[in-house]
């Protein structure tokens, strides 16, 4: 008994300490778009109505349970099959209440919300395209100041944090290398698609979520009203990396957005210029590209996860010849596989630029326990030629 008491006190203390440091939120996070605000209102109103119904019904039940007890000698009321008219009248009351709630109190505002949610074009001032792929988001600006900017956004949380070998950062699993940047106050039309399986781009504070379907374009929109950094996640099961493809959106003022766009366009231009690189430069950049994009499946060591994800160490493709006698790359060679993919292996030609592809191939052929005898170094120019 004493033990039980101690246990109870211990559990209570644990709970107290939890709630002391807890970051409990009991409702949706603060809305920052008109859609999220609308959603929050719908949710609050509905929760209030259902809570009232629940409490009222529960009170009736509890009253009945306390009063109409056999042990208290309560005699059942001779509720002989009630006459049809009376029965119909009584059973129509709950029916009518729900009719009112469903189709008037909730139904009418819900109609307007749906129309608003689906109206992606009216007054929209810019268009971006979001592509989901296993397990990263790719963003592309289709018009306006930022036209032509295109980048990939990867999880930035390190592996040792996930395996509890390092302290977890504040934004554990909700941090990326390149966040999406959006101007505050602009209605942004979002075209959504995917390159492999279904994904769902979701930021809770935006109140919009849409499935990205490979081979189809879906639409949604956001209009962020307040500057800040907003975080969300993929919410459609998309394989083993489903928990590791966060969305981070950096909402900035229009001026800052224009500055960012100019800077980013310049960087992108520079990266697209193909220049001759040394083997060491390629290896250094290749390691970064590899660990960001390839190591999820092929592992940091190159050992892979057979049978689904083959090892690169000692792989025929990663050590065999790439270019034929005519100087063109061969089918099923290392370069072909990285550019065009096969089966589960994604095609990288749309995601990585020439330099990145050259670097990662060179890295795979000279590191991870490999020493390729032929075509040990691939230059960006060769990748560029291969694309044409």
């Amino acid at each position, binding site marked *: 008994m004493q033990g039980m008491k101690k246990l109870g006190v211990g559990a209570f203390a644990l709970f107290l300490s939890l709630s002391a440091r807890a970051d409990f939120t009991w409702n949706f996070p603060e809305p920052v778009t008109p859609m999220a605000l609308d959603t929050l209102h719908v949710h609050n109103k*509905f929760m209030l109505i259902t809570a009232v119904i629940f409490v009222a019904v529960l009170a009736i039940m509890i009253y*009945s349970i306390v009063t109409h007890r056999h042990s208290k000698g309560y005699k059942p009321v001779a509720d002989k099959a009630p006459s049809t008219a009376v029965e119909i009248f009584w059973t129509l009351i709950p029916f009518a209440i729900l009719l009112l709630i469903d189709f008037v109190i909730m139904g009418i505002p819900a109609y307007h919300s749906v129309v608003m949610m689906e109206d992606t074009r009216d007054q929209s001032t810019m268009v971006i395209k979001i592509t989901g792929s296993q397990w990263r988001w790719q963003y592309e600006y289709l018009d306006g100041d930022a036209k032509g900017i295109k980048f990939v956004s990867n999880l930035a949380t390190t592996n040792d944090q996930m395996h509890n070998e390092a302290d977890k950062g504040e934004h554990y699993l909700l941090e990326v290398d390149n966040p999406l940047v959006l101007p505050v106050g602009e209605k942004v039309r979002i075209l959504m698609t995917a390159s492999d399986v279904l994904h769902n781009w979701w930021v809770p504070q935006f109140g919009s979520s849409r499935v990205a379907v490979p081979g189809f374009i879906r639409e949604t929109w956001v209009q962020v009203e307040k500057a800040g950094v907003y975080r969300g996640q993929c919410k459609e099961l998309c394989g083993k990396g489903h928990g590791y493809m966060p969305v981070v959106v950096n909402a900035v003022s229009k001026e800052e957005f224009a500055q960012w766009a100019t800077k980013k366009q310049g960087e992108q231009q520079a990266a697209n210029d193909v220049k001759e690189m040394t083997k060491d430069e390629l290896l250094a950049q290749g390691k970064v590209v590899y660990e960001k994009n390839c190591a999820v499946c092929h592992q940091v060591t190159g050992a892979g996860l057979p049978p689904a994800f083959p090892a690169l160490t000692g792989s025929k493709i990663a050590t065999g010849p790439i270019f034929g006698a005519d100087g063109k790359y061969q089918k099923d060679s290392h370069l072909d596989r990285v550019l065009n993919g096969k089966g589960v292996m994604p095609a990288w030609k749309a995601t990585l630029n020439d330099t990145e592809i050259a670097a990662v191939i060179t890295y795979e052929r000279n590191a991870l326990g490999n020493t390729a005898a032929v075509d040990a170094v691939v230059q960006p120019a060769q990748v560029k030629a291969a694309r044409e």
Partner: protein
Amino acid sequence: MSTTTVAHHDEHHDDHPTGIMRWLTTTNHKDIGTMYLTFSLVMFLVGGSMILGIRAELFKPGLQLMNPEFFNQLIGVHALIMIFAALMPAATGFANWMLPLQIGAPDMALPRLNNWGFWILPPSAILLTLPFTLALFGVGDGALATGWTFYPPLSVQGGIGVDFAIFAVHLLGISSVLGSINIIVTIYNMRAPGMTLMKMPMFAWGWLITAFLLIATIPVLAGAVTMLLTDRHFGTHFFDAAGGGDPIMFQHLFWFFGHPEVYILLLPVWGFIPQILQTFSRKPMYGYKAQVYSLWAIGALAVVVWAHHFFTAGMPVPALLYFMYSTMAISLPLAVLFYCWIRTMWKGSMSFETPMLFTVGWIILFGIGGLTGLVLADVAADAQYHNSYFVVAHFHYTLFAGGIMGIMAGVYYWLPKMTGHMYNEKLGKTHFWLTAISFNVTFIPQFFVGLAGMPRRIPDYALQFAEFNMISTVGAFVLGLSQLLFVYIIISCVKGGKKATDKVWEGAQGLEWTLSSPPPYHSFTEQPVVK
């Protein structure tokens, strides 16, 4: 309804093989019912231990126990087992045991088909779980890792686990359709003289509608997963845009089955819950006709609301509005049912034995599931709820509280009739309180963590979700361990205990209570007449 029966039996009719052959070859509805219920209990524990693995992993942020691949396999197989191998067989088990007794029939109409219907189940359960074992020996990469919904293209990409699961679903589907045919034929042809359809026990009504829903929707599921199979292996492109297909078409086909499936799991429970209520309230159920019509209305609505499971997949505005309003309409007949259940209790003379405790708890908790379902129908709000933990909590209120706790009420209600012994009332009540409390400790935090923005089906999560997940895991372990008490209560009741009377409960009404406890191997050797 008053009945006349003679419980009178010829001993030599009870001859049957003994040992394993009795169970393999039996065509007796009670033996088959017992096998269904036992199978269901075993699979309930299997599916439950899988989810305890998941909850243990989610106890704190970081990857502790398993890699994400294995995590994804556990969630999908947990759901398939709980739905197809625990809840559905439990309802079929009750149908086998109790339908003939309740409608005054000597057995089910198609006894050999009945035997086959059961014996398809164990192989399909093995098919479903075999890939886990195969992976240990280096064959394949484990079980189905797509969640129970099989969404392509992920399921086209998946390993042999998907194929095993597809064949398992085929077999489970065949079993359900056979069981449904048997139930429909039995109900239409084998009722005692005088028992018109509108005098049938509510359980028979619940199951009749369930059986029609199964026959209408299981073939669609079987077709959808077969198309998936040919997409995987024979180069078809039903669900591949590159070949003119559409991944979302699979979702339409799947949920055309999947939504009625919810009612398939719940309608049998809605059948016997009013019977338990009238027994322990000692007065006839209120609004019999209203309940029957409501069950039909829900059965009909069940097959026309499927797309609310994927509002975020993108649909034209008129489709969104149609599926939203039709989904909300389900709450109308459901409100009538709730009203009738509570009105049955009202001014009754209630006592609270374990079955009644479970029933009252069931009404309250299933009510939470129903009310949160109402708000999920709102398309705009659904963009937030969809695939978040809010949905996980919602459907566990409908399927664990509304399904499994209902089944438990049925088990305690009929166990004395089936075994001839009373179960241990004190332990039964302990089991109820442990289950009800730990269930809420498990799932209430999931509502909040879902609102805060935690998606479902992720093996690891951001730090702000940590506290809720920790509480949920503690609740889940108490909930899981409490079920061992349930198993103990059932086993000790089968082995012995206080002798049960024929009527068992003071307020019991219906033909099954006119037979001895346990009923003779062949019941109703003389046909009862219902006046």
